[in-house]
């Protein structure tokens, strides 16, 4: 019993690292994704093309490879980043690309009539985006954003290759040391709890943003 308690305590520490990566990535990649979506939809060909390239690059290569690149390749060209920052950079750039595509689809799903109504009421493009388009878009993008967010919880385990002690790496270390599989079960339960909380949160958000459609 004692050893189980000890295991759980160690793994809670690992969970802290996991949650840290998770939240910071989310906080940066969501707004960055929105910006990238606007860039992708920009009428300026150069901006739009650049964003297309960025999204293709990020979605077209493994996140693991991106992590390794930031961690090992950047120092070779003189860019030294602390471990955590390196991990966060890779995660944020990767997830922003996925969010960008989700937001782009959301923005494009709003009918032209909404833009036209706003325009005939004298609203500027910025006002139209902020007051009319984005609030409606949020509703449409919540389910896919929820999906990506749950993916992110699990993807954080990739940082084991950067030798950071996240939840899964802590579990594995204990398993290898003590030949006891319990930590894997505990880790699974921890991931499931985090996912359950997220699912519940997104359900609430969907209800809130969908209230006008009942």
């Amino acid at each position, binding site marked *: 019993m004692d050893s189980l308690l000890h295991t759980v305590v160690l793994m809670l520490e690992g969970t802290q690292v996991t949650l840290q990566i998770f939240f910071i990535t989310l906080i940066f990649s969501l707004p960055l994704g929105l910006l990238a979506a606007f860039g992708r939809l920009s009428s300026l060909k150069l901006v739009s093309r650049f964003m297309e390239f960025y999204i293709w690059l990020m979605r077209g290569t493994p996140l693991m490879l991106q992590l390794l690149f930031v961690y090992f390749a950047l120092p070779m060209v003189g860019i030294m980043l602390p471990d955590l920052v390196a991990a966060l950079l890779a995660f944020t750039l990767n997830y922003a690309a996925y969010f960008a595509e989700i937001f782009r689809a959301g923005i494009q799903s709003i*009918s032209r*009539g*909404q833009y*036209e*109504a706003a*325009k*005939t*009421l*004298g*609203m*500027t493009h910025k*006002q139209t985006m902020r*007051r*009319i388009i984005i*609030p*409606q878009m949020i*509703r449409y993008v919540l389910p896919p954003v929820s999906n990506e967010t749950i993916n992110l919880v699990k993807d954080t385990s990739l940082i084991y290759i950067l030798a950071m002690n996240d939840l899964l790496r802590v579990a594995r270390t204990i398993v290898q040391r003590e030949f006891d599989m319990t930590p894997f079960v505990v880790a699974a339960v921890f991931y499931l709890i985090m996912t359950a909380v997220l699912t519940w949160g997104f359900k609430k958000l969907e209800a809130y*943003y969908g*209230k*006008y*459609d*009942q």
Partner: protein
Amino acid sequence: MENMTNNQVMLRLTQIHKKFDELEVLRGIDLDLKKGETKAIIGPSGSGKSTLLRCINRLEIIDSGKIEIKGRALAQNNSENVAEYVSEKEARDILSCTGMVFQQFNLFPHMTVMQNLLEAPVQVQKRKKEEVIPEAEELLRKVGLFEKRDNYPSRLSGGQQQRVAIARALCMKPDIMLFDEPTSALDPELTGEVLKTMRELAAEHMTMLVVTHEMAFAREAANQVVFMADGVIVEQGPAQQVIDHPQEERTQAFLKNML
């Protein structure tokens, strides 16, 4: 009703030309709208009447011609006979005296009826919410939807949504109202309530330009009727004259099919 309109020209279109790719949808339209006048534009689908209306407030961009609103040019030809528009900011200012009602209502679905009405006065005209609310309530009473003020548009019937859309446009205190087939998306039994609201507006001498398929409305509520076909104005004149005694063959054929 004729003599109730005075002679101030609120809107003047001169030689409007507009192409979609190779198709010329507007082929030299001249049109005046006087203060207090209700003008109905009728014609077969594809005649360019909706496009013409949408050109007035920049929902479509004209190729050549001149658009003047209350004496201010929104667009006019340069030396190469190509229409040039004023700046975005000036265009918004010139068009601030116009309101538009769409076939598909286009209410903001994430806002309640009241929020739909308040949005533009508060965000665009920077007026105080408390100041606009009584006016919005008055408009909702006028269109008979005061009790729906806190509902979301999805809870309303098409006819009710369209009346909210009219109230939303009126909340900006426009001098000119543009209606783009306001009853075409409605079930027949719901068109009456929208037309009633529009008749009341016409009776109050709101300056209105109405693209419509409702001949009865055009005949009774409009002062002037314009018949368009193939991108040109075929015939125009006093409403009852054009509808009861059309002079042109095209008009006669069209009206015969409508009745």
